[in-house]
């Protein structure tokens, strides 16, 4: 029995020397601007660990050197949703995981391809029906948007009846689309019961409503 702690210590030393990490994507081909929700299986990451999208031809570099080539990135710490956005240009790309901002080597990577869709998205759409939701709970709202939207295009709750031009100033919980052409936003239903719209709006400044769906928010039972 006294050998067991020693065995564990040995395993621990081996463990430190052979930490591994994996990055996986759910498919190998994405459309431009499509949301990518990768699986990242790793440990011992720093609080500033991050996952970046790079052109496949980018040589393996330290985190600091790599920053000039990043097309999109995400961190993990205290972040409830992890996604990156597929580049707008068709081609081959890598997802690369760095342990922290000072990391000198790539911990893991995964390749994917971006191909233009056979039937490109022609109009913005919120892919949910008019619905009833309880207050203060979030729920998924899938959406589509033609490529080339402003980075500050957003989707979110607005009290029903608000003028389209006042959408941005009246918005409640919302999420920026960050260049995504298709993906899922998670919106928090307002705390006060009532009638609301979920609106997909072109940008913070233009406030053109591209699509909207009515939602009735009910008090929690």
């Amino acid at each position: 029995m006294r050998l067991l702690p020693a065995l564990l210590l040995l395993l621990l030393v081996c463990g430190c020397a052979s930490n591994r990490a994996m990055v996986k994507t759910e498919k190998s081909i994405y459309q431009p601007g499509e949301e990518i929700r990768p699986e990242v299986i790793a440990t011992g990451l720093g609080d500033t660990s991050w996952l970046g999208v790079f052109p496949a031809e980018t040589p393996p570099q330290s985190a600091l050197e790599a920053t000039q080539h990043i097309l999109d990135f995400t961190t993990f710490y205290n972040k409830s949703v992890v996604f990156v956005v597929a580049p707008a240009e068709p081609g081959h790309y890598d997802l690369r995981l760095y342990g922290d901002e000072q990391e000198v080597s790539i911990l893991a990577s995964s390749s994917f391809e971006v191909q233009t869709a056979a039937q490109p998205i022609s109009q913005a759409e919120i892919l949910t029906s008019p619905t009833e939701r309880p207050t203060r709970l979030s729920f998924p709202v899938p959406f589509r948007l033609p490529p080339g939207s402003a980075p500050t295009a957003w989707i979110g709750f607005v009290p029903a009846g608000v003028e389209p031009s006042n959408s941005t100033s009246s918005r409640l919980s919302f999420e920026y689309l960050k260049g995504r052409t298709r993906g899922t936003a998670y919106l928090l239903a307002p705390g006060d019961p009532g009638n609301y719209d979920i609106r997909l709006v072109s940008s913070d400044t233009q406030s053109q409503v591209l699509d909207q769906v009515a939602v009735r928010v009910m008090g929690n039972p």
Partner: protein
Amino acid sequence: MSSENRAVPESHNSGGWSVAAYGSLVVSFLGGVLLYHQLLANSVFQAADWPKEMAYLHLLKEALEELRLPLYLSRPIQNTSLFLANPEINLSPQVLLLRFTSIEAFVHLNILLLYSIGFAGWVKAAKKFSVPPLYAALASLTFLGNGYFLSRIAVGHFMWVSCFLFPWWALAISDLIECPSRKAIIKVGFWSWLILLQGGFHQFIWLNLFALLLALATGGRLLVPLLKVIGLNALLGAFRIVPAAYAYAGHKHPFLTGFHDFTTLWLGLIGDYHVGITTRPWAPHIAKVGWWEFDHYLGIPGLIVLAVCSWAWMKAKTDGSLALACGLLTLLSLGQIMEWMSKLSLPFVDAERVPSRFFIVVLLFCLIMGLKHLGQAMRDPKLLALGAGLLVWQWWALWTHLEGWRPEIVERFMMSSTPYLVHFTEADFPLYQTVVAASWGVTLLSLAGAAWSYKGGGEK
């Protein structure tokens, strides 16, 4: 130190407790239940750290329902995707309830269960030290209902419920001081293990740190037994410590803050602040962390209870080494020493980056030792009437404090729009699996050995 050998006789006169005595316990117990009910009743568990905790519980429920070994997550949470290497996840037996209840109901049940066990610990203390139960009711409410728990549970530090088991740990330490037998060592180890099972990893570290300080403070007589406690804790806790050490090897935890000074500590005890407080001119470092890292709110009545307990302990002029250990832990909770120690890269020490959290152990021992030394001194009916009034006043003070930590208030400041999107996935990290299997093996063997030793091990 000879006075520490003085065993306090256990009361066998439980029949002597009057209806009023039991009444005070019932009032205290229900008062605490009401506090936690109010704290959780309207929560959607989506503010502050609750989304992370709900993700853990959701994953546990899924693992139980699908009878799968929960090894790999689809993304890191707390810097690791290795589920069984994350020591703050609740792996206690009551987690099995998740098979039959909703996650929200489990949160309520788990808090109620651990609160009840903690409360029973205070009743046990009253019996052990032959104290009128009213004072146990007061000490219980002071400890189990103070701002330390209310504020932390409000912001989703769900693993903090493991602190509800602290009274039992303190009683086991008290037994060990009176008679450092093998059984006493195993008892301390058992409670440490139970605390670790609840996800109380930080708490486990503090208690071992306190045991180490106590070992140093007591010197010769208790040095070896307390080091044995720490050794036993390491063996029993291997199933969580070793995978965590594997998963977080090389990970650096930046130090945050302790109380910084005695003014902040004092304000932690009496400051009726709510979740929204950020900075104050007298304590700009608070901006680094939320007020819950300092909140130990007792209010004036709780402060009176603490003062009386501390006075009784000081007056008894005994258990000096315990007082010294408490003093040392208070110094560590100020932060400066821990900040320096965190730079030494000692295993697990740098995980304690908010040492103000330690102070609850000091409060615990002040109250427990207070009960011990109050003894027969406060059986005067007039004092009992005063104590009853204090109990009600204290409950009201805590209820008032709770107002600032209700879900609606916390959500106003710290609402998250998204639940954690995470699921189990397949991967193959053979070393991780070996570490998990071996460390669980060590824990199970150690448990069996400890149980065998406790049953037949005698006094040495």
